[in-house]
């Protein structure tokens, strides 16, 4: 993979230059945490963060977005017809996204880009964005990306991966989109052979610092109904308050709701993030609710991520190990522990089934 040098002295000026052809987003400190915000001209992203509170999911898949516009005014020729909302899909770049969050876009694409249907909003936004990642030299205690298919230096989903090496960034240019961004920023100094070795050295150090892991190797072979009926769900779910924190902070949760909002005679059809934690998510018009109880909803979240997804795509778990849900769950429900329960679960008595 091509590696270029970006002297830190050229970082800000490069971004300014890239700003001519890209809208730029990056982490900005807000109070006690960091959030992705659009950068004003000349503003540089704050790269001293461990990770942003919210993932970069919303930059491609906004929490609320317009799908269609309409008028209900019978005097208008196109009344009651939905028209595609005009949206800005001009080129943009996200600076400083963590590799785990970038990998999440690859994962979520499996939901939004299918052989039968393509979600035009997600795909256009994804196409418009260039991801300039920042390698994770100091992973958090709750990070388990290496056992969730990603890693602190993973380039999956990224167009450029920046590795901090003191006075400059070593930038791995992973895609043509990344190449175009580097061009726009005027960063073109090729790195020498030592750069790749330096990146590899740093990667090994960072990976070794991750001491949190999940075992997932048995999830596939577990029987769905057996896991579904496992007795541990009551205990896992007891403390859950059914808020949407885990799902909204998660870079790989993709569920949404569609709503019409009319003001006067004009209106919009919107889509909003939704959460399997909310009872309303599955409530039938008749009042029947197939997941009306908390334990059913908590089970759904974990079964989806760690069993249904695993079976459906045969491509790992629906989790990149960013650890946000672990850090921010108000009642400390820890996906790592649940994964362990699910992965290691055996029906009582199974161990006795030894062939004599």
């Amino acid at each position, binding site marked *: 993979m091509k590696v270029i040098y970006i002297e830190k002295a050229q970082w800000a000026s490069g971004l300014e230059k890239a700003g001519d052809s890209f809208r730029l987003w990056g982490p900005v400190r807000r109070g006690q*945490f960091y959030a992705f915000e659009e950068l004003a001209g000349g503003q540089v992203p704050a790269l001293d963060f461990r990770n942003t509170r919210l993932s970069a999911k919303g930059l491609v898949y906004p929490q609320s977005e317009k799908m269609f516009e309409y008028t209900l005014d019978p005097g208008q020729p196109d009344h009651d017809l939905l028209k595609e909302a005009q949206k800005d899909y001009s080129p943009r770049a996200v600076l400083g996204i963590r590799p785990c969050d970038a990998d999440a876009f690859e994962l979520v694409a499996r939901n939004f880009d299918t052989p039968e249907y393509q979600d035009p909003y997600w795909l256009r936004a994804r196409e418009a964005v260039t991801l300039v990642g920042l390698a994770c030299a100091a992973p958090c205690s709750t990070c388990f990306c290496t056992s969730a298919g990603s890693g602190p230096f993973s380039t999956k989903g990224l167009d450029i991966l920046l590795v901090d090496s003191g006075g400059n960034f070593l930038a791995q240019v992973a895609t043509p989109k990344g190449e175009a961004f580097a061009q726009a920023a005027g960063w073109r100094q090729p790195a020498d052979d030592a750069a790749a070795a330096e990146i590899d050295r740093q990667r090994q150090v960072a990976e070794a610092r991750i001491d949190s892991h999940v075992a997932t190797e048995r999830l596939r072979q577990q029987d769905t109904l057996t896991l579904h009926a496992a007795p541990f769900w009551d205990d896992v779910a007891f403390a859950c308050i059914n808020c949407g924190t885990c799902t909204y902070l998660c870079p790989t949760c993709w569920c949404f709701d569609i709503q019409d909002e009319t003001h006067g005679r004009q209106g919009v059809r919107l889509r909003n993030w939704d959460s399997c934690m909310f009872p309303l998510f599955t409530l039938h018009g008749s009042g029947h609710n197939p997941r009306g109880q908390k334990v059913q909803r908590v089970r759904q979240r974990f079964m989806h991520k760690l069993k249904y997804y695993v079976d459906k795509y045969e491509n790992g778990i629906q989790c990149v190990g960013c650890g946000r849900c672990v850090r921010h769950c108000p009642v400390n429900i820890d996906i790592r522990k649940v994964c362990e329960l699910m992965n290691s679960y055996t029906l009582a008595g199974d161990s006795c089934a030894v062939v004599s």
Partner: protein
Amino acid sequence: MRAYTEKIREIARRLLEACTVERVLGFRRGSVPMMNAPCFVKTPAEAANLVWDSNCGINLANYLTSRSEKIGIFAKGCDSRNIVTHIIENKIRREQLVIIGVPCHGMIDRHRIAAMADGEIREVVEDENNIIVQGDGFKKVHNRHDVLQANCAVCTHRNPVIYDELVADLVEEPGDVDRYRDVREIEALSAEGKWDFFDDLLHDCIRCYACRNACPLCYCPTCFVDESRPQWVGKSQDPVDVRTFHFLRAYHCAGRCTDCGACERACPVGINMRVFTKKLEKDCLEKFGWEAGLSLEARPPLDAYRPDDPDDFIR
């Protein structure tokens, strides 16, 4: 507070062994620093999982709503006041509960401590007065009072107001606490200033409803934000809808809120939504002489009419 843990385990074991209660509601050690998880202990052996320290901030009254078993519950001052509110509002019966009072020294603010750390926190331990934070290549000692959760720092009801037995001797209630400085500052703003203040306050809200769901007062079967006929509030991130949610939720807590801080503690994006409920709390105190959850007998101010109720806002 270390001694609390031993005592708590002993009490839980005793209650379960004697079948005085079917379950005991307490905390177990969490999987990350400064995080304990509410748990339901069902057998005497499981009582050994219970812990108590400065990370037991979740309001356990939240887990009592409409339960039918006989339950032992460990209650700090604020928990006990919400238990009272639950009993008054018929969400649980007093006879179902064995309340074990836990005189409280205040819970710590994990978000603030994390923001003050010089790196990733690996372990947090505490002694009588200090919180000792250790992480990758650093160690920091905080005075407990400096890192208390915001509501705990101004708490005037640390002792449980209702209990069947106590874990330890009652603690001294802080005397000269200015509970409403922040509210007065907002009250002093112009209308426009207030509007901007709340705009900024709610800027990061993601409507995950953690504040609502962590709140023991928010037990409506269908919250007003979830109603579809009529739909009172839009469901998007539109700032007017976000504000409507927070502001109406706060009003639903008027005269009921004990300032337990559950909402703020649960918020994943650090919104100080207590300024809403505290204003109402302050009004209840100043206009009706009312503090929620102190008595099983007195009726809440919004629940009873008195001829001397303040009415100078009515023309």
